[in-house]
C-alpha cells in the first residue's frame, strides 16, 4: 500500500504532517486529591495534502477538536511531532506563532462566539489583515478586507464591515470566519465542525465555499465533523476517531460504504438515514464512550464491541490494511476469517456473536502469523495509520 487514493502522487510531501500526536490533560482532584491524567489524544498520525479535503469523524469527547487545537498550536502536544512542508514545527513565542498561523488557520465551530461582540466585523477583519501584513497602508488594508469578503461571496463589502456580529446571520458569520482565515493566505485550514451550528439549508453553501477554496487556492483542508454522511460527500479522505485514537482510515467513500471497524459500523447504523432498508433491526449498542482518565485496556472500543475477543481485552490492536488505501485498528483483520466474519455480518445484526463464518471455522494460529507478516510490508513505513493520498 503506497498511497491512499490516486489523485496525488505518493512522493508529494504533505503540507502538514503529524506523527504520534498525543495530548494528556492533567486533572487536579482538589487540594489533596490525586493528580490524574486524561489521555485526550493518543498517538495520532495525520497527513494533510494540498488541495485535498481530509475529514476526521468522531463524537463529542473523541478528541477530534483537540487534534485541531494541537495542529493550530493553541495547545502544546504532550508527545509527537508536527511538520509543515517537511520542516519540523516548534513554536515558541509570539513571532513564531504568527509566522506559523499565517500558514495554518483555524476555523471554530460556533460562529456566534468566535467574533468579539463589541467590535464591528470591519475592525476584526482589519485587525487580522494587519497581524499578517503589518506593512500595508490603511487603504491597502481596506482593499484586502474587500477582497477576502468577495472571496466568501459577501458583497458589497460595506454592507458587512460596519456591522456588529449580532446583526448578522449564522451563515454570514461563518463566512466571515472563513474570510478572517483567508486574510493570512494560509496553505492549511483546520475547520472544526464549521457547519454544525448552522441551519440545514445554509450548511451546503458554506461547505461548498470551503471546498472551492481548497481546490482553487490549493489549500489542505481538515474537516472535523460528527456527521459521517457529510464527510462522505465533502471529503476525499477520512478517518474515524474514537476515545482519542484514530480507529479507521481510508477514502471517505470506502469508509462509509464498506466500514471495517466495528465502531464505524455503529456510527453508520446510528446515523439518521431515510434510505436505510426498513428491515434493519434496532440499534444494538450498550454503553457509552469510555472515561479517558481511565481508558479500557487493550482496544478502547472493546467494552462496546459486539465482536469482542479475548485478545481485544488485553492488547491494543495495531493497524491492519483492510483494502486498497484503507486501514483499520481492529484485531478481526488479523486473519482473513475475521475480516470475512465482519463483512458477513449485517451492519445492525442483533447478535453477531452467533453469526459469521469465524465461529464455525476459526483460523489456525499458524495461518494468523503468515497473514500478519504478509500484511506488514504494505503498511506505510513512516506511519502505521497515516492518511496518505
Amino acid at each position, binding site marked *: 500500500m503506497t498511497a491512499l487514493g490516486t489523485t496525488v502522487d505518493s512522493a508529494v510531501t504533505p503540507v502538514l504532517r503529524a506523527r504520534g500526536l498525543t495530548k494528556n490533560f492533567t486533572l487536579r482532584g482538589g487540594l489533596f486529591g490525586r493528580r490524574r491524567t486524561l489521555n485526550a489524544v493518543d498517538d495520532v498520525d495525520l497527513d494533510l495534502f494540498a488541495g485535498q479535503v481530509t475529514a476526521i469523524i468522531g463524537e463529542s469527547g473523541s478528541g477530534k477538536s483537540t487534534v485541531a487545537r494541537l495542529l493550530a498550536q493553541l495547545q502544546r502536544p504532550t508527545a509527537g511531532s508536527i511538520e509543515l512542508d517537511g520542516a519540523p514545527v516548534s513554536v515558541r513565542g509570539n513571532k513564531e506563532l504568527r509566522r506559523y498561523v499565517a500558514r495554518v*488557520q483555524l476555523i471554530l465551530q*460556533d460562529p456566534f462566539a468566535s467574533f468579539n461582540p463589541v467590535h464591528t466585523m470591519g475592525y476584526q477583519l482589519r485587525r487580522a489583515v494587519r497581524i499578517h501584513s503589518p506593512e500595508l497602508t490603511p487603504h491597502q488594508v481596506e482593499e484586502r478586507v474587500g477582497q477576502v469578503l468577495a472571496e466568501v461571496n459577501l458583497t458589497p463589502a460595506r454592507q458587512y464591515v460596519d456591522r456588529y456580529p449580532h446583526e448578522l446571520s449564522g451563515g454570514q458569520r461563518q463566512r466571515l470566519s472563513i474570510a*478572517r482565515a483567508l486574510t493570512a493566505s494560509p496553505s492549511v485550514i483546520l475547520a472544526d465542525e464549521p457547519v454544525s451550528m448552522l*441551519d*440545514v439549508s445554509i450548511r451546503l453553501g458554506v461547505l461548498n465555499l470551503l471546498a472551492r477554496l481548497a481546490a482553487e487556492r490549493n489549500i489542505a483542508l481538515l474537516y472535523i465533523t460528527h456527521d459521517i*454522511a457529510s464527510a*462522505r460527500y465533502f471529503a476525499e479522505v477520512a478517518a474515524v476517531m474514537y476515545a482519542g485514537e484514530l480507529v479507521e482510515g481510508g477514502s471517505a*467513500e470506502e469508509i462509509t460504504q464498506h466500514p471495517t471497524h466495528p465502531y464505524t459500523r455503529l456510527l453508520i447504523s446510528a446515523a439518521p438515514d431515510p434510505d436505510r432498508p426498513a428491515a434493519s433491526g*434496532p440499534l444494538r449498542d450498550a454503553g457509552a464512550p469510555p472515561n479517558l482518565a481511565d481508558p479500557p485496556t487493550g482496544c478502547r472500543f472493546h467494552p462496546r464491541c459486539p465482536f469482542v475477543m479475548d485478545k481485544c481485552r488485553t492488547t491494543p490492536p495495531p493497524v491492519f490494511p483492510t483494502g486498497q488505501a484503507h486501514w483499520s485498528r481492529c484485531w478481526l483483520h488479523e486473519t482473513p476469517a475475521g475480516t470475512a466474519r465482519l463483512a458477513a455480518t449485517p451492519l445492525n445484526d442483533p447478535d453477531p456473536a452467533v453469526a459469521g463464518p469465524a465461529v464455525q471455522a476459526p483460523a489456525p494460529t499458524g495461518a494468523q502469523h503468515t497473514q500478519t507478516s504478509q500484511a506488514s510490508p504494505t503498511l506505510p513505513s513512516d506511519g502505521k495509520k497515516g492518511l496518505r493520498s
Partner: protein
Amino acid sequence: MTTNLLADVESGTTGQEDRPASRFGWLRGFRSARTLTGVVLMVLFVLMALLGPVFVRTDPSAVSDDVLSPPSGAHLLGTTHTGQDVLAQLIDGSRISLLTGFVAAALATVLSLLIGLAAGYLGGLSDELLSLLSNIFLVIPSLPLVVILTGALPEAGSLAIIIVISLTSWAWGARVLRAQTLSLRKRDFVEAARASGESTWRIIFREILPNQTAIVAATFLSTVIGAILTQASLAFLGLTDVTQWSWGGMLYWAQNSAALNYGAWWWFVPPGLCIALVGTALSLINFGIDEFINPRLRSAHIATKNARNKPMARRLPSDEAESDDTGASSPTHGDVVLEIRNLTVEYQTGGDPIRAVDDVSLQLRRGEVLGIAGESGSGKSTLAYAITRLHQPPARITGGQLLYTHPDGSRTDLLTLSGKALTAFRWEEMSIVLQSAMNALNPLLRIGVQIDDALQAHRPAMGAGARSARVRELLELVGIDPQRSAAYPHELSGGMRQRVMIAIALTLDPDVIVMDEPTTALDVVTQRQILQRIVSLKDRLHFAVIFITHDLSMLIELSDRIAVMYAGRVVEEAPAKHFYARPLHPYSQGLLASFPTLSGAKRVLTGIAGAPPDLGALPSGCSFRPRCPRAFDRCPVVEPPLLLLAPTGGSEDVAGRRQVACLLYDGADAGRSGTGSTGIPEKVQV
C-alpha cells in the same frame, strides 16, 4: 470530484435590506427615563461645581452678623451660626466632594482593572498571588482602616483622603473583573485571536476589556458613590481638614454647632440632600449603563408587559359554534387527539408585532408521530411552546384554537383554560420534553425524588409505596436501571438525563407529548438509542408525539406524518414516506437536496440559495419566493394558501392527505409544477 456533487449553492448574500448599525446607536441609551434623569441630575451637579463660583461670588468662609437666618433674598439658603452663606459653602463643597469621589474611584478602578485582568488572564501563580492580595484587602474592615490611615497621615489633605479611599475600595472590583476575565478567556473569540497570533496585551486590552466596559463602568460609578460617602463620613467625623469646605464638612459644623437644636434645617438639609441626590443620579445611570455600552442592547427594546397563562381575550367568530361540537364536521375526528386550528402567535416588540406562527392548522392523531421540520426562525419552537402554553411574555397567542379531544370524545379548547386547570391539563394530558430539559434537572436532588415530585403534586392520594413503585416502573420504561433512582443528575450522562426527562414526561400517562429537539445536543449513537426508546414506548403506551427538529432525515425515519414550516407557516404536510419520495414544495425539495445521504449512490446536492428570512421584514407574497428557483410572476403578488391535494387513494383521511402552500399547484399554474407526469394527484382547493 467531490465538489461536482455539490451543486452551485454558495452565495451567502440574500435579499436582506442594507441596515448597518448606526454610529450613534449608543444615544439610544437615553431613551430610558431613568437613565435620562440620572444623567441630567449628574450634569447639573457637575455644572454647579464648575460654574457655581462664577455666579455665587460670596466667600463661603466670610463671617457676617447675619447669623442663623433662614433662606431669604440675600442668602438663598440662609446662613450658619457665624453668618456664613450656606449656598456658597454648598457650591464650594461640591467641588471637593465630587473631586474626591471621581478621582478616588478612577484610581480604584485602574487598580482593580490592572489586578483583575492580570490575575484572570495570566492565571497560575500570578493569579494566586494577586487574588490573595485582593482577598486580604477585602477582609480588612475598610472604614476603621480609613480612619486609622487618615489619622496617621501627617496632614489629612484631599489628596491623602483620595489615596486612602482608593486603596480601600479597589479589591471588590478586582475580584469581579478577575471572574469575568476568567470566563471571557475561554470564549471562542479570544481563542480565535490567540490562534491568529495576536499579542497578549492586545488580547487583554482590545478583546477582553471592551467586553467588560459595562462592569468597569458600573464598578466605577458605585465606587464614586462609595467614595463620596466615605469622604462625607470622614469629614463629618472631623478627620479631614475642616477648614476646607465639603458637604461632609458642612454637616460636621452643623452638628458641632447644634444646628438641629436651633431648628436651622437650611444648614444641614442641603448638603445631605446633595449627597443623596448624587448617589441617586449615579445609581440611575448605573441601571442604564448596559444600554450605552452593549451594541446588542441598543437595538429595539422588547416590550415585556403581557399576560401569560391567561385565557385568550379575543375569540374567533367560529369559536362559539365549535365549542359544543363534538366533531361532526370532520369524518376522522374520533382519531384526532389534538387539533391546532389557525393558531397565530406574535411577538410584541417595540414596533410592529412579529408573527412567529402564522395561521397554523395541524391535526395530531392518537398514537402517531407528527414531525415538524423547520430551520431557525421558522416558528417551530414557538409553536411547541404555544401548544403547551408555556410561551413567555413577549410572545402572545393572538388567534386560533387548540382543541383537545378527551378519551370520552368531548373537546376542550386549551386556549380557554387558565390557572389550575391549565397546570393540571399540562401534565395529565400533555407533557413536553425540551432540548435544554436535560439541564433543567435540579442538581441537588436525586433523580428518583424529582420524578416523585411530579407524582406527589398531581396524585396526592397516592401512597409512598405506590409512588416509589411507579418511579421504578418509569425508570425501567426509559431504560434506566431502577437502582439508579438514587443517582444525582451530574452522575448521569446527557443521554441518561434526557431519558429521565422523558420519564418525568410520562409520569402521568399523557395522551400527547411535545418534543422540541430532544436529542439535538446528543451524540448520534445516544440519539438513536433514545429515538428507538420513544418509538417503542409510543407503541406500548399509545401516546401521540409532536416531534420538532431541524434534522429532516431523522424526522423522515421517525414520523408518520411531516409538516414543514417556513417563516411561521406550514408550507407542506404529507405522510413521511410520500414526502421523502416526492416532496412538493420547492423549499421541501431544497431541504431534501441539502443533506448528504449515507447509503445508496451519491446524489447531487443542490441545496437552497440565500438564508432564512427575517420575520420582521418578510417578502411580499410567498415568503420563500426570494430563495425559490421556480418562482414566477404571481409569487410576489399572491400569498399561497395551503392547498389540499386529493390523495391518490381518494380518501380524505388525515393520515394520507397531502397539503402544500405553493402556487405551482394552484389553478391555472398547476401545469408549471412539472410533476404532472410523475403522478402528482389532482389538486383540490380547500
